[in-house]
């Protein structure tokens, strides 16, 4: 069995705003093993990005604050590290790929400069070595004429190419884990596939664990080994990709899977949309946050938030009707 790389225990990140306390992430517990690829899925505002930013300690404070919890990375709680020690972790041990390839690269610096900066800082390479390695990295992520293009600026690359540069940047210091926050959402469908492919290949080659954050279950089906579904700041289902896709045990996961039109199925008359809107995570009552949108809600759902319960080994769901969900869905 693979070594445990990261353990997130009861992590909670709140934002203290004028309108009240936004519990963006509220008691999230999960783990990532070495070399594993995991997808965190949920819609905007469910806390998936905030939970990733919390791991990197990149939450703007104020208004945000990690109120409690542990993030244990290779045995040390990185929430207790000083800012200087944390800097060693970022890029060196854990690196991040952001959603917007347009805004996450500095437009006034060459790609070569941005790639070598981290290499010189973290890997103690001299300028020449760093440049050579940067060129090799660009080549590996599939940028043609890589060594010459080091002199180019971000605007000279297309969106997909920029995301490749971001991936090269993320793997440049051989991190143990890459967090990719919606890495393909801003890209075209054809390019999405290419970028994810590159990301997975790079992660495999370097034995890096990969955490993919996305709102589209379809995109990651091919790449994720495990899937964690979040809703309103909490994990509502998690399990192996196979379990979650073929045997979803939470009405929200089921709804997400059904609301996407599928190419391999007959065209339905109507899409099965999840009605309603995700709740604002301010002052949520102690009840299932999904209950107002749920077709299967029972009285109990509005009285108390269900706990995460194991259905089969490794497959958990936060739902009172998890075990009968399939019979109910058929009706």
């Amino acid at each position, binding site marked *: 069995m693979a070594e445990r790389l990261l353990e997130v225990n009861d992590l909670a990140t709140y934002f203290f705003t004028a309108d009240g306390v936004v519990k963006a992430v509220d008691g999230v517990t999960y783990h990532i093993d070495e070399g594993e690829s995991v997808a965190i899925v949920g*819609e*905007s505002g469910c806390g998936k990005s905030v939970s990733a930013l919390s791991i990197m300690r990149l939450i703007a404070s104020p208004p945000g604050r990690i109120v409690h919890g542990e993030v244990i990375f290779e045995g040390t709680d990185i929430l207790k590290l000083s800012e200087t020690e944390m800097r060693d972790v970022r890029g060196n041990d854990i690196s991040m790929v952001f959603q917007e390839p347009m805004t996450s690269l500095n437009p006034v610096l060459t790609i070569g400069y941005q790639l070598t900066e981290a290499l010189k800082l973290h890997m103690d390479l001299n300028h020449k070595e760093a440049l050579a390695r940067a060129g090799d990295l660009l080549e590996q992520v599939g940028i*043609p004429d890589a060594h010459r293009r080091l002199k180019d600026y971000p605007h000279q690359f*297309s*969106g*997909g*190419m920029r995301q490749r540069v971001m991936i090269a940047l993320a793997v440049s210091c051989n991190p143990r884990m890459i967090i990719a926050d919606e890495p393909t959402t801003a890209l*075209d*469908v*054809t*390019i*999405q*596939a*290419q970028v994810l*492919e590159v990301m997975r290949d790079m992660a495999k080659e370097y034995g890096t664990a990969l955490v993919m954050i996305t*709102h*589209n*279950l*379809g*995109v*990651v*089906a*091919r790449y*994720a080994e495990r899937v964690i579904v979040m809703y309103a700041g909490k994990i509502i289902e998690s399990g192996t*990709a*196979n379990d979650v*896709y*073929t045997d979803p045990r939470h009405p929200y996961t089921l*709804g*997400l*899977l059904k*609301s*996407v*039109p*599928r*190419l*391999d199925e007959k*065209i*339905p008359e*109507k*899409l*099965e*949309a*999840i*009605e309603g*809107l*995700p709740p604002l995570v301010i002052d949520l009552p102690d009840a299932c946050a999904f209950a107002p949108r749920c077709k299967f809600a029972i009285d109990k759902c509005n009285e108390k938030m269900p706990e995460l319960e194991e259905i089969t080994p490794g497959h958990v769901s936060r739902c009172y009707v998890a075990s009968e969900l399939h019979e109910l869905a058929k009706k």
Partner: protein
Amino acid sequence: MVQETKTTEKTKETKSSDGHDNILEVKNLKQYFPITSGILLQRHVADVKAVDDISFTIRRGETLGLVGESGCGKSTTGRSILQLNSPTDGEVIFNGENIAGWNVNQMRPLRRQMQLIFQDPYSSLNPRMSAGSIIGEPLIVHGLTDSKNEYRERIAHLLENVGLNPFMADRYPHEFSGGQRQRIGIARAIAVNPSFIVCDEPVSALDVSIQAQVINLMEDLQEQYDLTYLFIAHDLSVVRHISDRIAVMYLGHIVEIADRVELYENPQHPYTKALLSAIPIPDPVLEATRDRIVLEGDVPSPSDPPVGCVFKTRCPSPSNQCTDAEDQMHLVEVSPEHWVDACCVNCG
């Protein structure tokens, strides 16, 4: 509640040569954007050929899907049809009348019949106007209401029609979520009772669970108001769901056009095949066994497209004919209603 009055001026039936009742016919449409150089004397040095000689028809009451990657000219096509760009060449025949090159004043009465829904629900609504005045503005512009009361009732009715609460009319865009904003954009488009709507990526900025809601809403409205849609998107699975026929665009050209079932079951053009294979299926078992056609390289620049077949630089099996030939791109009918680019048909 005021019952929507159907536009009385019944548009004349336009049976065209192909025997269909076409609401819109696009013939050899070209939209070039000039590249100039020099400060004082703006010399015209080249053209960005955003749309280069495309022809298609849209039948009354159907949805035509237009798909392609960013930069292929699909949005430009929509804007050129609505005369938001003045086409460089070609005809845009709407209800039997060629409107290509019409100016703002000529177009204004027609705008009641053709509307546009935008991609980004954040930038397409004026943040300083309330939802009610955003939806009501077209009613005022076109003089469709006589009294304040009627105006208010129409707005309330429109809000209800798109699944929003009438009391939300006084709220401002920032108080709505992305999906709700898109509903406001849709309400604004249907306010004037149009017959034709260009939908420019209406769901691609929305969350998956909200996408399905908006697609269902658009289908309901189509039935209710007898709408014809030109549905522009890059996501083929969404397009397949909502469209009757689908046109695939690449670098300013339409490379394949067919009925949705035919296009998915029997794609002919290598670009269509590649697009289809890139669509993920939410099933890890199936995904693991699927073959994926990955196109090499990038889309060439539309200011300097390849001569002859524009797809030859990325075609997985280019033949000698297409690499040499300087034939213009044109569609041929391979089976009834299924048109494919000639070069690809010749290649086999």
